[in-house]
């Protein structure tokens, strides 16, 4: 256990500067977004009210029929709610989407370099001269490249959610209630719960790709990133040519779509009024339905296959050019 922990610490130490830089930029982004939302929403509301008041007309969302029957005071309040909610939810969405995407890209860079870099600089001989099994070495890399990066994504996302909750101007509950959303949908614990579930599902999606890129890192003689990504694209195109659809490419990018859809429907409140208070939020249709599906089984089988190939290739310690 101590030995395995040392392997993970080693990976963390090699990548921590990258993580720190990304985390720092993220915090700066948080501060900037909060400032923009706070100042921007106030300016927007006041400017909008002044303009509309002077012109004697209001520019509410035409689809929102309820607003037509509000008194002027209620209309101002509703307008403020609309703008705040729009800004807040989009800040939330942009923040977590961005950090998740950045961490996925970093994981890709990590995985294609994980073994290749050691083969290239000769340090694989140092590591293999120590009493640590190949299985431990490789599984620690796979674990760090998946769970490790997703854990950072989750943590930074949680920070973002908490930050967004704290920086929303005015009384959040009033704003949410005025927008007609179920309070349970935007409770901090629910948001964090969604975020955690999303990462578990993302892990199931990421694992086969991670194992594939680790394999590429173990066998390629040069340019593992180019080869790894290139082969996937070629396979996708070949699939399209042979099968006549984009199923493979869609599957590869499916997770990114799911993130977007989830955020739009669950967090941005576009389905808010349709979900009754206390009703469970269903990601990907259904969490249990997704995780206990054939898709997950295939994911695990592909992961196991690539990991097995990586294990045997790693033992051969193939030279790089």
């Amino acid at each position: 256990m101590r030995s395995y922990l040392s392997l993970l610490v080693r990976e963390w130490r090699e990548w921590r500067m990258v993580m720190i830089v990304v985390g720092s930029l993220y915090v700066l982004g948080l501060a900037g977004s909060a400032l923009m939302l706070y100042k921007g929403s106030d300016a927007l509301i006041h400017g909008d009210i002044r303009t509309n008041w002077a012109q004697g007309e209001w520019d509410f969302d035409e689809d929102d029929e309820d607003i037509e029957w509000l008194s002027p005071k209620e209309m101002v309040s509703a307008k403020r709610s609309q703008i705040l909610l729009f800004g807040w939810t989009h800040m939330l969405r942009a923040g977590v989407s961005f950090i998740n995407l950045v961490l996925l890209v970093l994981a890709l860079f990590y995985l294609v370099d994980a073994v290749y870099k050691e083969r290239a600089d000769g340090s694989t001989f140092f590591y293999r001269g120590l009493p640590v099994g190949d299985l431990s070495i490789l599984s620690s890399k796979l674990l760090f490249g998946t769970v490790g990066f997703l854990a950072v994504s989750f943590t930074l996302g949680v920070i973002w959610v908490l930050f967004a909750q704290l920086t929303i101007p005015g009384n959040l509950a009033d704003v949410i209630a005025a927008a007609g959303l179920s309070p349970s949908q935007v409770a901090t614990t629910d948001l964090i719960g969604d975020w955690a579930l999303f990462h578990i599902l993302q892990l199931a999606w990421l694992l086969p790709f991670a194992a594939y890129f680790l394999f590429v890192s173990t066998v390629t003689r040069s340019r593992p990133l180019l080869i790894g990504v290139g082969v996937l694209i070629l396979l996708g195109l070949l699939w399209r040519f042979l099968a006549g659809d984009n199923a493979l490419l869609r599957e590869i990018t499916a997770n990114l779509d799911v993130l977007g859809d989830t955020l739009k429907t669950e967090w941005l409140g576009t389905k808010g009024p349709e979900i009754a208070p206390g009703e469970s939020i269903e990601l990907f249709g259904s969490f249990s339905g997704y995780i206990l599906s054939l898709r997950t089984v295939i994911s695990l089988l592909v992961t196991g296959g690539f990991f097995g190939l990586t294990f045997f290739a790693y033992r051969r310690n193939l030279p790089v050019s």
Partner: protein
Amino acid sequence: MEPLIHIRDVSKSYGSTQALKAISLDIPAGRIVGLVGPNGAGKTTLLRALTGSIDYHGHIRILGLEPRNRREKLVAFTGVIHDVAVLPPWMKVRHVLDYMQGVHPRFNRQRCEEFLATTAIEQGKKVKQLSKGMKTQLHLAVVMATDTRLLILDEPTHGLDILFRKRFYTTILDEYFDGDKSIVISTHQVEEVEHILSDVIFIREGSVLLNITMDQLREEFVQLTVPAEKTDEVRSLGPLTEHELFGRKVFLLRDVDRATVEPLGEVQVPSVSDVFVALMGGEA
């Protein structure tokens, strides 16, 4: 009694290049063995096979373990310095020690730090910031602080100056070797290690050319320096090599009766490098 290292028919190819050609060897315990050969002879490949760092065909048993399948167990009792360039360049020195402490049950951090304290190496520096000599010292400190039975050194002093090289081997002898432990040293600079060797193995183009103890080498090979008029008589004994030195002829002979050659001139024990050059056909 099983030898410490037992090698049978070990082969290894890289593409169309055969680096090792069915090598068979036995190395007993308590020896300091020099693995000597020109560049590209297969020394490094053999040592990497011994530590299980690469796959191979054939059979190797070290301390009763097959490196290919039992690398993890084997290297717990084996110290390896492959080359000074194998330490992870991004790691800080203290992280190297942390890592060793975490994964090697026989690593003594205190001993390593004591050793490093005698050098100019700072623990906060990254490996890539160290000079080549410092990297060797660091690697040596790590290996010296690990309780092992076998030490494998692959060109450990390659590219270092004479002071570092001397200090390196002095440290190995003083701090590590105690008669029970064994050392296998690979080098093509044979003159710098021959004084510490108990056995020598010459390797060329993936094959073992000579596997002999230093005592046997001193008995088996003779360097004979004779005046010009004795040249033909010595040539009839079938010398391995001959060259001229200050107007006299110097021959290297193998398996000759000393009593027979002593009357012909001055008999000396040849250096390992002389024997090496003679057997390599002058290519070294």
